[in-house]
């Protein structure tokens, strides 16, 4: 028996919400980063679920793209976080406001 699509969507929505809340409330840059990954994966899950439901391959392809972009983003983002951490011994995003007026 096929799992109904609603299950996937509910899980996806939960994951996305957790990620969004994490981005908004956490201060540690690494945790925010992980939360963003959570959001991305929630979206990927949605894409694949619809892909399966509709019997089309487009959604899966898009998911791959999204993963590639996420990987690239992680590379750059982690490098920045590491650089900031080395300098300030903290990964608290509220402290990073040098470019503010």
């Amino acid at each position, binding site marked *: 028996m096929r799992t109904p699509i609603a299950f996937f969507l509910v899980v996806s929505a939960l994951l996305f919400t957790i990620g969004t809340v994490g981005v*908004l*409330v956490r201060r540690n840059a690494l945790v925010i980063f992980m939360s963003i990954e959570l959001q991305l994966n929630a979206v990927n899950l949605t894409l694949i679920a619809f892909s399966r439901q509709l019997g089309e391959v487009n959604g899966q392809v898009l998911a791959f793209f999204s993963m590639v972009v996420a990987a690239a983003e992680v590379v750059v983002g982690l490098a920045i976080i590491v650089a900031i951490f080395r300098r300030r011994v903290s990964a608290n*995003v509220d402290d*990073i406001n040098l470019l503010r*007026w």
Partner: protein
Amino acid sequence: MTDLIWLVPALPLAGAVALLLAGKPLRRIAGGLASLLVGASFVVSVLVLIDLLGVGAEERTVAVKIFDWISVGSFEAPVELRVDPLSMVMALTVTGVGFLIHVYSIDYMHGDPRYSRYFAYLNLFVAAMLTLVLANNLVLLYVGWEGVGLCSYLLIAFWFERRAAADAGKKAFIVTRIGDTAMLIGIFLAFSTTGSVRFDEVFGAAGGLASGTATAIALLLFAGAVGKSAQLPLHVWLPDAMEGPTPVSALIHAATMVTAGVYLVVRAHAIFEASEVALGVVAVVGIVTAVYAGLSAIGQDDLKRVLAYSTISQLGYMFLAAGVGAYAVAIFHLVAHAFFKALLFLSAGSVMHATDGVIDVTRLGGLRRRMPVTAASFAVGGLALAGIPLLVGFFSKDQILAAAYEAGRTGLWITGLVAAFITAIYITRAYLLTFEGEPRSELHPHESPALMSVPMAVLGVGAVLGGLLGASAQTGRVQRFLGPVVGEPEAHAAAGALSEVGLSVIASAVAVGGIALAWALYGSGRVDWQALRARFGGARRALSRGFYVDDAYGALLVTPGKAAASFSASVLDTRVVDGAVNGIGRAFVRLAGVGRRLQTGLVRTYALAFLLGAAALVLVLVVRT
């Protein structure tokens, strides 16, 4: 040969370019090279003249097109040279006198740190002047006109380390600019009414112009001539122009450039004749200037300034001649003046050379014994200027006065005689104070070297024998040669009560009378002229300052102008212009002060804004579907 006319301006131009680009390596030969090129130009002019004399009088106008220059719609201004009697007389005068003055300058400027540049400018001047006189349309003429103005500025201010020279250069440029601007407007007006700038078409259409339009064009062109030829009221630059090297004063500010205005009036006489008032204005401005400048010349102590005012006065004579319709006579006087005035200037330069720059006649005296050649040259030039019979100035001046008399303008004639009387006085005074009597200061003058004496001698011969070329207004060679261009000289057999011989006798008597009076005052020793100076101090000061015209301009125009400029600079510019710019800048800073509060620097605020924005977009999409 006529096709080679382009060589005439091109040779000096090539010299100017070569000397400007390679002045240092060419320094040793700069003077020789420049003189040679102008000499070659003179030779080409002579060959063209011979060609021209070989054909009938009616075929002596040839247009030689060199290349298209400006061609827009119906507007055509080609670089086209006009070979006709008038332009050839001018070209020969310019190259001939120019050549002699180049040769003279070789020794005069010897040792100057900017020797090459001097000859480059001088060559450039000759090229521009030749462009002016050979041009076949008003636009090319204007190019030459501005070119000579530029060279005049460069050469007056040649010794720009001296404040006076730099100021005089600027003054000359700015004052003539007033006339030039009017002239440019006149050219525009001529084009807009006749549809062309070519001489043949513009002057051909002159007869059909409305009288008011013709007057406007003629007076605007005449304003240019007034500026360039230093007539009242734009004459103030010429006396100051004497700050330049003396050969420059001889070439540019006596023999050639300043006569461009006379040339223009003669060239454009068709327009002047189409107007009722223009010719009258020309004659009146000329005669008033002649008398005014002559009186001012009496009061000058600087020998060169005497000659400068004399030049203004003689140019006034030429305009008088043009104004009464005696164009050929005006040009003849122009040529004659080029010879004797260049001679006078070169003699003055020789004096300066010998006395290390002392030129104040009250400090000179007795130079004749030390410098016989210079004294003789000055005497010949002076006698020619005064109009003593058989010298060239006698014929030309006599013909001008006769033309005024025969035109029925007795008032102009009498005033002209007064001017001639004044002329004789001031030039005799200058000669006597410089060369006769006892030396009035410790100077050890010496005669000038050959390269300076020879040009003076050649010009002297010209001043003596020039009369052979134009002894009579009707039958003189120059006048008949010019006939096809300026109209045949008319024979006014019995316009007045006096015959031509009678007029000549009167003119000569006036000249001799002037010389005698000056001799009695300054040469006889019976009058203490220094006591006289002290007694009439006020009158002398008025004369020496040219009746305070310059001071009046200073008070009425220059001082308010400077005040307005400094007001603009310190108030308008700093407060209004800068204030507006700075004010706009400050307004944006203030506006940005409000906007920048949005940038908290808290990453989570941005994330929230991002989320809300995304949610809003989704909401919009949902609502719309």
